């Protein structure tokens, strides 16, 4: 056995060879981090995910229908801390050859030094010019998805793009009479929607369930998280991808406990039912997915497990 073989090797207690000190300045630290983009092929399409950054928020209060200790235990299984919840944002961009499509726009303009709102700054590193984006697809109108429609100056961040929105989402947040029928935490969306879409007047196309935004990219209603929340099926021939938007918040928590309802949900019960149905389908079909709040690079697969589902990151390549 190896132990014996090892013993037979020359037992070295030789004095350590002294080495000449290499007098050197510390290695330079820059660049601090690789640019936050990741690219993969989907048939002839090219998919790029872009890290828009993160925001730390309390774990306490995040899940509305489970005890804090239980939530913390689920987080701990994924080596996530018990106090600070890191809300992460990743934007999916698909180049079909015909169209350059951005799915949701991230957090948009921020104060200097912010840890989020990085989409526009990161796109050039990935060779993507916002001015060449032909289509912006919005899954739903929560601020972290639409705030990036505008620049710091208030103009269109994607000046040459058509903006495609779910009809039911548009209908809800553009009808002032709905405000009192919305959860208190969601009411700022009414003013924010008007403000963020303003530079795109005349360039907004509403889409109904099952319709195509552009060839190869089709909308599917997945409502609950917001009144008109949608997911998007992207296909080139046999190659398929589903952009899951906010079907889960962080999958380490919400895919594994699909019945959890978060403070971001418009209708938590409907959101949970939709989530179970969609994740079940993703697991059955073993289809590749991207998600807005998935750990970067935010692409992988959904696997069934005991109490729900697990997100399995795709191999980096």
């Amino acid at each position, binding site marked *: *056995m190896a*132990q014996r073989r090892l013993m037979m090797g020359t037992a070295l207690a030789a004095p350590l060879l002294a080495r000449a000190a290499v007098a050197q300045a510390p*290695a330079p630290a820059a660049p601090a981090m690789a640019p936050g983009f990741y690219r993969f092929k989907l048939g002839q399409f090219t998919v790029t995910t872009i890290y828009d950054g993160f925001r730390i928020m309390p774990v306490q209060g995040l899940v509305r229908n489970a005890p804090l200790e239980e939530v913390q235990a689920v987080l701990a299984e994924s080596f996530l801390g018990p106090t600070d919840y890191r809300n992460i944002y990743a934007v999916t961009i698909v180049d079909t050859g015909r169209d350059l499509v951005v799915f949701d726009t991230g957090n948009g303009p921020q104060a200097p030094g912010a840890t989020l709102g990085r989409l526009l700054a990161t796109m050039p590193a990935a060779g993507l010019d916002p001015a060449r984006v032909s289509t912006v697809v919005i899954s739903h109108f929560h601020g972290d998805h639409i705030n990036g429609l505008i620049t710091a100056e208030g103009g269109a961040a994607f000046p040459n793009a058509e903006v495609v929105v779910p009809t039911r989402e548009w209908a809800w947040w553009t009808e002032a009479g709905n405000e009192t029928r919305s959860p208190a935490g969601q009411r700022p969306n009414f003013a924010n929607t008007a403000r963020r879409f303003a530079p795109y007047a005349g360039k907004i196309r509403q889409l109904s369930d099952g319709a195509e935004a552009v060839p190869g990219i089709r909308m599917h209603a997945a409502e609950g998280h917001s009144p008109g929340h949608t997911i998007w099926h992207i296909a080139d021939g046999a190659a398929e991808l589903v952009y899951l938007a906010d079907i889960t918040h962080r999958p380490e928590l919400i895919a594994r406990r699909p019945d959890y309802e978060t403070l971001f949900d418009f209708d938590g019960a409907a959101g949970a039912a939709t989530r179970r149905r969609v994740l079940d389908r993703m697991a059955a079909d073993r289809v590749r997915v991207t998600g807005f709040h998935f750990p970067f690079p935010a692409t992988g697969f959904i696997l069934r497990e005991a109490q729900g589902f697990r997100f399995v990151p795709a*191999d980096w390549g």
Partner: protein
Amino acid sequence: MTIARRIALAAPAVIIAAQVMPALAQAPAAAPAGQAPGFYRFKVGGWTITTVHDGFFRRPLEGFVRNAPIAEVQGILAENFMATDTLAVPFTITFAQKDATLVVFDAGNGVTPAAATNGKMIGNMAAAGIDPARVSHVIQSHFHGDHINGLLNAANAAAFPNAEIIVPAAEWAWWTEASNESRSPEGQRPQFANVPRRFAPYQGKIRQVAAGVEVLPGITSIAAYGHTPGHTLYRIADGNEQMIFVADITNRPEFMMRRPEWQIVFDFDGDMAAASRRRVLDMLATDRIRVTGYHFPFPANGYVARHVSGGVQGFMFVPAEWSSAV
């Protein structure tokens, strides 16, 4: 049936005529095919850790695991959404920098032909701003070719010209004693010629270290023999923070953590490797220590959790979260 149809909701179909907008006559920019550079950074106390991708090598799955039926291996791979005909073995090198100390753990595949899928470390180091001339120490886990070939540059000179080379004494002893060749598994015998060649430019700068000693301030060797006679892990610590470079304690963790008893074609002593693996993984899961691994999915850092699958008590690799904030 298409997924599109299957995921279609039974939501009330509110048919509102879509506002037709004038087509924007603009061809999208062709996205460049390039991937983001393969490096990733995080902190362990005062250490700045950088993992650098060295590419991958694809080989047939057949024959890779020596003591399990291939169908069983394929089953575990499929659960992880991996290919079941071939196995892509990735390589990721761990760097640790603190003050004037810049350590590289293992040297990568080195210079490879232009079309090779491995040997990407040199380019990715440059992208990460790491100059090989500034590396102060190369610390070797073991002497398999994918770990030592990168000691040489294209001119067969020292790729890390100013570095001291730190090697496990047990590993050095085995591969530098010619009479061990006939006592080594056949597939491992080429190491005897490869070792002197790769270490040649570092004459006088090679330091052998025992297991369980501090090889540099904050860096301690941990014996994990079996995969090779002197296979060694390294703990990197500063203050209350620590991580462990676990080298080849597993090949790809997606299957070797699930089934720690499996033995692979590269193991010198498979039984001993499996015993070391179970002992180390058990310790990592208990202590919840962050790790980097040489054949882990990039960026090759995360944690080890206990996990039962198929009735077998094994482990699971949990990648650490990617963050733009180092």
